[in-house]
């Protein structure tokens, strides 16, 4: 943690210098330089959260990004961004290429992006790391689980996108269609969860394709939309089979039989008020050993509201609802009691949140947020709670205080 804070401080100093000149020229082309960083502190009662030892208070919540972008011609833009984070046991300061894109806009209604591209999914998937852009220190974790960001954050491939104005003053449609490969860091939440089950990934990657359609309606400030993602993911590594533990660690390779995500969302902004709501459903079917498949059904939704009190101060609140149901061959999963019963605390997380966001100046902010959670949603797929940090078992309720500060330039 200390190393992380030193890095953040150095980045702040560097950013301060860059703040004077955020662009430079190469071959007569202007290159914009931008960066962001944030540092959080989390204290919880009840369970430890997000792989942090948060019951004792934890500052292991740091992230940062640095981007370079240039407009090479009227229609062609190129750029890239490096991202690094440490969240409890996740990330562990291994920097990654967040995105690297060549973007060519043929027409308003047709553009192409290629490279490693941030995935458009719901309202905030692609901007979930940009804490300064949100009132909340943590987005609704049922819909945007920060421990599982790798699952959806970007794909290496391409997008087709564009904006189409509708006739008769019916607003505008923005579309994105994409295909590419996802490649998770082995320091992300799902591989970390499975370590506790004696499953050790060397790689976890595969194809993603899908699209997003959003309608800026004629009602001023109202946008509605839907997203879809299909995936085929292969995990490779070693594991100890529950059915043959005596064999010890054996190699394995598993590919999802089905993996799809649907999202529906709406956003309404009027003057100082912003209201948004999203519904997300994930379904995946993973072979565990020959003849045994695990199906996971996740239903999540939230409704959030925020209000700008003044130039620098915003307050907000949301309710996030997350339910997971696990089956095997369509029947309840025997090792998990009540695996299809949403009322069981291991099958849900209900999170009530209040938050305050203060912009200290154009570049820096501080947020204070309270979470009041019921359930821990820990079964075959994580949602913020891990047995590694809660070896004594989980408690039903968790309250959390999150303080977060950061800057961008």
């Amino acid at each position: 943690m200390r190393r992380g804070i030193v890095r953040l401080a150095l980045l702040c100093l560097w950013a301060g210098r860059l703040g004077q000149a955020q662009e430079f020229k190469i071959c007569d082309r202007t290159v914009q330089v931008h960066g962001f960083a944030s540092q959080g502190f989390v204290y919880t009662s009840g369970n430890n959260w997000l792989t942090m030892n948060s019951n004792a208070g934890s500052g292991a919540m740091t992230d940062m990004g640095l981007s370079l972008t240039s407009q090479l011609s009227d229609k062609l833009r190129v750029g890239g961004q490096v991202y690094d984070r440490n969240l409890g046991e996740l990330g562990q300061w291994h920097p990654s290429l967040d995105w690297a894109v060549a973007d060519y806009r043929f027409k308003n209604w047709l553009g192409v992006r290629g490279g490693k591209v941030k995935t458009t999914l719901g309202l905030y998937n692609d901007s979930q790391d940009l804490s300064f852009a949100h009132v909340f220190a943590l987005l609704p974790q049922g819909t945007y689980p920060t421990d599982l960001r790798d699952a959806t954050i970007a794909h290496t491939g391409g997008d087709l996108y564009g904006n189409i104005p509708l006739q008769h003053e019916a607003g505008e449609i923005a579309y994105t269609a994409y295909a590419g490969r996802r490649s998770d860091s082995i320091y992300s939440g799902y591989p970390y969860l499975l370590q506790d089950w004696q499953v050790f990934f060397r790689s976890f990657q595969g194809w993603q394709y899908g699209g997003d359609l959003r309608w800026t309606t004629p009602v001023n400030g109202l946008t509605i939309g839907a997203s879809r993602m299909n995936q085929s993911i292969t995990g490779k590594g070693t594991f100890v089979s529950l059915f043959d533990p005596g064999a010890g660690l054996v190699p394995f390779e598993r590919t999802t039989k089905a993996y799809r995500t649907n999202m529906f969302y709406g956003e309404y902004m009027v003057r100082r008020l912003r209201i948004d709501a999203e519904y997300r459903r994930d379904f995946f079917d993973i072979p565990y050993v020959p003849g045994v498949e695990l199906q996971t059904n996740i239903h999540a939704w939230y409704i959030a509201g925020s209000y700008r009190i003044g130039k620098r101060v915003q307050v907000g609140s949301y309710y996030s609802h997350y339910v997971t149901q696990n089956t095997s061959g369509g029947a309840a999963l025997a090792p998990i009691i009540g695996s299809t019963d949403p009322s069981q605390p291991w099958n849900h997380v209900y999170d009530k949140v209040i938050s305050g966001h203060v912009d200290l100046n154009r570049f820096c902010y501080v947020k204070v947020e309270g979470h009041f959670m019921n359930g821990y949603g820990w079964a075959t797929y994580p949602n913020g709670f891990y047995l590694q940090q809660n070896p004594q078992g989980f408690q039903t309720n968790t309250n959390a205080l999150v303080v977060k500060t950061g800057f961008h330039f």
Partner: protein
Amino acid sequence: MKASTRWLITAAFAVCGALSARAAEVKIIANQSVTTDSISASELKSVFLLQRRALQDGSIVVPVVQKSGATQASFLREYMDRNPEEIRTYYYGLVFTGKGLMPKELHSDAEVVAYVARTKGAIGYVNIDFPTNGVKVLAISQAGASFARQLVTRVEPEYPETLQRLQIGGTVRLIVTISAKGSVEGVQLLGGNPILAEPAIKAVKQWVYSPGPSRSMLEVSIPFIPK
């Protein structure tokens, strides 16, 4: 003219000026390379949200914004429905997701006019009363209107002799309702000196535009510059 009369007229114009200052907003300016003379409010919003780079006539435009100040606030309130903090956050969101570049930020109307004048495709906004030499001023058509109306016949307004002599000028802003055939159906005063507004309205009622698919509305600014 008696000194007291001149004082009264000047005072009256000062009051009128103060009243119209409340409505003092912005005008949209573009580099001479931009071929269109008007832009719809929805198109303008898309341009400044970086959702489109080409206008309906095919002109590639590059928005330039003001870093802060009353002009920026007026523009954002009038055309973008966002406050300065929100729009800045929005731009940064595009930058850090690889979906856009931060628009050029300038500090004053003078800087914007100078930049737009020398930069091909540049489009920006300045205070309605700021001189705009070397750039073109784009008329704003009704939100959602998707057909640019070209002015075919223009009748110049008559400058009131008294005001001309007193070196009193100003800009009158009007909303013009144009029929599908191109005639001016109605004129509404948005702001400016009411005494100058009268001849301005009289002249604009005689204007003729190119035909369009339906009735449309344009914002028109008419400057009165004392010689």
